[in-house]
């Protein structure tokens, strides 16, 4: 009896009614463009279509922010902290006042973390094809979302990054995601990760099969410039708001694990 209620709580807690899906400069194309915008990058990938109940399980990407974006965020945080400091001091009632590192604020600047709406595909099928217009930059397979409004599971224990260049489609390959507390029908996942992991929350997993010569490209996109993504392993990171943590499934020749360490299989060295 308690499980559905807890799941509903989790779903609600991950919801963010005011936010629109996508993100700044992120557009999922539902039909093939006649030409690519030379100022934009494009991600082309196939995806599994698993759901949690009625709710789509979606892939979350992070674009690594530029130094200027980080500085803008820091300045906004400092300004908000300075403005709130009298209130924080009053609330502390003589006790310790939160430091700026402990301070939470709503940032109104451009976003760099977004989920791809599972309904915004360019070609339907058992594996849907997605063409997503994004700002050029370096991207991280950041995690998985149920519903696309919050990070449900982060790939905090290991993942990959890749560059997306302007004026071309970056072929990622095939992405898979599902709940993985038990065996999943979705292939390539590290599933069945442990009994009783579904009692008070769930855990999702993600896998990537990089593009190769056999990876299908929608016919309508075949004439557009494209390049296969080059993936690099990424080490541990924190996402305090994610209710669960996991790692991207190992990828032969790219991403491996040795106990808790993330291994860059291109070099055999621990990933940073």
């Amino acid at each position, binding site marked *: 009896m308690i499980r559905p209620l807890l799941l509903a*709580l989790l779903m609600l807690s991950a919801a963010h009614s005011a*936010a629109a899906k996508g993100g700044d400069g992120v557009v999922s194309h539902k039909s093939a463009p006649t030409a690519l915008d030379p100022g934009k990058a494009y991600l082309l990938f196939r995806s599994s279509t698993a759901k949690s109940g009625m709710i789509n399980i979606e892939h979350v990407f992070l674009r690594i922010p530029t130094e200027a974006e980080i500085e803008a965020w820091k300045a906004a945080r400092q300004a908000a902290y300075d403005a709130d400091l009298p209130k924080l001091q009053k609330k502390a009632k003589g006790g310790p006042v939160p430091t700026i590192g402990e301070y939470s604020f709503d940032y109104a600047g451009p976003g760099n973390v977004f989920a791809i709406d599972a309904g915004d595909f360019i070609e339907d099928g058992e594996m849907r094809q997605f063409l997503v217009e994004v700002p050029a930059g370096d991207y991280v397979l950041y995690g998985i979302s149920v519903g696309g409004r919050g990070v449900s599971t982060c790939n905090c224990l290991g993942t990959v990054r890749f560059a997306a260049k302007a004026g071309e489609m970056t072929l990622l390959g095939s992405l898979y995601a599902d709940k993985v507390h038990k065996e999943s029908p979705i292939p390539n996942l590290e599933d069945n990760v442990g009994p009783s992991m579904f009692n008070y929350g769930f855990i999702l997993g993600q896998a990537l099969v990089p593009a190769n010569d056999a990876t299908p490209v929608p016919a309508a996109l075949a004439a557009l410039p494209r390049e296969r993504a080059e993936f690099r392993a990424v080490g541990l990171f924190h996402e*305090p708001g994610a209710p669960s943590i996991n790692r991207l499934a190992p990828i032969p020749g790219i991403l491996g694990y040795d106990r808790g360490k993330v291994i860059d299989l291109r070099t055999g060295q621990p990933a940073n």
Partner: protein
Amino acid sequence: MGTRQKTRLAAMLAGALMTTTTATAQDARPDPAAVVLPDVSVDQNPKAVEDGFKFFYFHNPSVSFDEAYADIAECRSFLVSGAPAAIPGFRPWVEPVRHDVKRQYPGVGLLDMAMRSAIASIILPKLERGIRNNKLRRCMEPRGYARYPAPEAAWQTLNEGDEATLVAMQAKLASGARPNAAQVSE
């Protein structure tokens, strides 16, 4: 290691310190002989065995105290809590971000609010424990650690209080003699 990587490593450590005095792998290790442990025996405690999936500690027969300390400190750094991370949004990537939990009771009466609070007081601690347990398991089990049941009172001693003390106690158990109890299997 490049500047960006160093900055992100620093962010990892700062993140771990964000809401708690989490012990880090860089801390000076305590002398395990001086670490006092609660009684985790469940020989005469079938309830503790039954509840092992809720109240447990980790053990790995092939790690030293120092290795266990580093593993537990690193994995516990993921317990830093926060509100759900709404997306789309901004993550500085090289800086930890705190998301405060904001309780909201939209346009409801006092009775409804009281009922919500009563239900929340029952469910939320279990929910939080389950989420924390899942995070620890996903981080620790690939490193070769198995779970063993502990009485609830001992579990509380091992999980509530000064972070460095908790890590030291758990590391001593994790690297100590193999427990007599059967592994938690559910």
